[in-house]
């Protein structure tokens, strides 16, 4: 590969070059300290919330901050989930996430299969895939107003059903796009063999293709769970009652109130965070692909 030397200000470039050169040679010695610094910067705030949720109030307000030496207590957890309504929010969050994920997976996988395997005329496969993806690109606030009015007219405000419907819709493009990618990677011959043996297309999908993409399906499911679990704007707009509120909305409602119970807040925060962390570890391998909707790799 030929190199162009098109530097106008060679003096400056030389100095920059030296600096960068030095940086690159130093990186061998720097990498472990750097690694440690990055990890601390990333994880310390999360750990701080964890400690607050386990501290008695005396320790919470201690100056200087107590990172390690405090007497742990679970009182904030029982306060949040037994005395206050956080238990109910948690149940709502679980129901809404699981149901919407299930619906999106069923509907979306069928569509993904059609887009990956069944050729339609006029390049429709590609066009539809792109269109489906593009529906995910709107800023959510754009559809918040009309969807609020729609749910109001359907008398679905303050119901879990409204959130299940909406989250199914939000997750669909994602499921279609991910699953289409997984399907395309499986060689066609495997299904064709099953069909020669007398299986129908959908039979081959169920018995041959789905088992092969099972890890991808699981990863997609986990992504949907995370997206639904974390969603905030629509839950805020559509649910205002304790019976229908999700965990994020419940937490936010308490944060912005005047008197803040930090222990309760953090306890709820930790509970909202834990399933996500577990899930994230499970899908690590698929993560970059999922977050970029497959745009980086293939």
């Amino acid at each position, binding site marked *: *590969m030929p*190199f162009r030397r098109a530097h106008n200000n060679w003096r400056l470039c030389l100095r920059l070059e030296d600096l*960068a050169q030095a940086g*690159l*040679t130093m*990186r061998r010695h720097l*990498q*472990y300290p*750097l690694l440690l610094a*990055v990890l601390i910067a*990333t994880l310390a*705030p999360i750990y701080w*919330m964890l400690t607050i949720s386990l501290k008695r109030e005396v320790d*919470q*307000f201690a100056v*200087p*901050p107590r990172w390690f030496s405090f007497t742990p207590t679970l009182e904030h957890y029982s306060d949040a989930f037994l005395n206050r309504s956080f238990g109910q929010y948690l149940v709502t969050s679980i129901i809404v996430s699981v149901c919407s994920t299930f619906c999106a997976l069923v509907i979306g996988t*069928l*569509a993904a299969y*059609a*887009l990956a395997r069944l*050729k*339609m005329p006029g390049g429709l496969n590609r066009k539809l895939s792109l269109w*489906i993806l593009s*529906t995910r690109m*709107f*800023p*959510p*606030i*754009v*559809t*918040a*107003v*009309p969807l609020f009015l729609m749910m109001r007219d359907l008398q679905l405000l303050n119901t879990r059903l409204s959130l299940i419907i*909406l989250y199914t*819709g*939000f997750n*669909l*493009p994602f499921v279609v796009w991910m699953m289409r990618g997984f399907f395309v990677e499986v060689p066609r011959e495997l299904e*064709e*063999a099953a069909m020669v043996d007398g299986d129908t*297309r*959908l039979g081959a999908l169920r018995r041959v293709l789905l088992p092969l993409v099972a890890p991808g399906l699981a990863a997609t499911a986990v992504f949907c769970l*995370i997206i639904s679990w974390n969603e*905030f704007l629509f839950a*805020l*707009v559509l649910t205002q009652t304790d019976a229908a509120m999700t965990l*994020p*909305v419940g937490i*936010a409602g308490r*944060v912005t109130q005047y008197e803040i119970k930090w222990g309760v*807040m*953090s306890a709820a925060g930790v509970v*909202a965070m834990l399933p996500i*962390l577990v899930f*994230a*570890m499970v899908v690590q391998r698929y993560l970059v692909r999922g*977050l*970029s909707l497959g745009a*980086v790799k293939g």
Partner: protein
Amino acid sequence: MPRLRRFLNAANKKGLGFRVSGFGSDRTLAYLLLAPTLFVLLALSIYPLVHAISLSLQITSGGAARWSLQNFGRLFSDQFFLAALSHTLIYALSALTLEFLLGLALAVLLNRQMRGRTFLRAGMLAPMMLPTVVVGVIWRLMLNPNFGAVNGTLKGIGLNTTALTWTSSPRLAMLSVIVVDVWQWTPFMFLILLAGLQAIPQEPYEAAMIDGSSGWQTFRHVTLPLLKPAILVGLLLRTMDLLRVFDQVFILTEGGPGFATETISLYIYRTAFRFSNFGYAAAMSFVLLLITNIISAFYIRILQARESG
């Protein structure tokens, strides 16, 4: 499975080939399978969009709605809207720049075989997977002026922190929300760029070494151009998210103090759900949609120009 494939190949060679794609019902089946998805997306994406357009073009006076461009006309004289617009742009640009530079530096420095890398990746995944509400809680705790870990630590090394009220200071509030976003999303940039770096083949580097180019030259003329698709995708996705920011700011500052961190999404939310002015909110959301579309079209054009060129 290899045995199956071998069998199929053998069958094909013996003239026992088959064509499954000739089924006439494939197309019908495709439409059937796609129908539920298309229905849901039409109902939850396209219909609301059309409804929003009609809302934005109507004003209600005295109980009766009539068609008007007034909602759009009002935009340009609304100080709050213009302020929210500029807050959003400042926020997006600062956070994007910081996340990109930090992410790139980390990806380049940590792109090599070493122990603890899986651990690093797992650790860095944590912030971006968290519910934004939890991120908000975490940083309310960290940045609390009196007992937060940030001020506590600064005090510990002997600094005066009385002026550092973070989210409740008009001057520091914007900085606070930017820092929080950088904390949460730099790992994303890092992971995308790292994936991009690892996809670069070894040959250009070997060629560069033979040509005797320095580390910086190699980075400038080999790594950066080959990394460009990953860079563009990372920037595109972050820009879209930053322009529509709502959750973090809502939890951290609620747009305050005063109006200091009010972004477009927050202002739209307030207009619609506090003041019930749905038409004006819809008009503003179209401006936001237009801005994000123009910017993403710009990115995608660069990306495509690269692929074809």
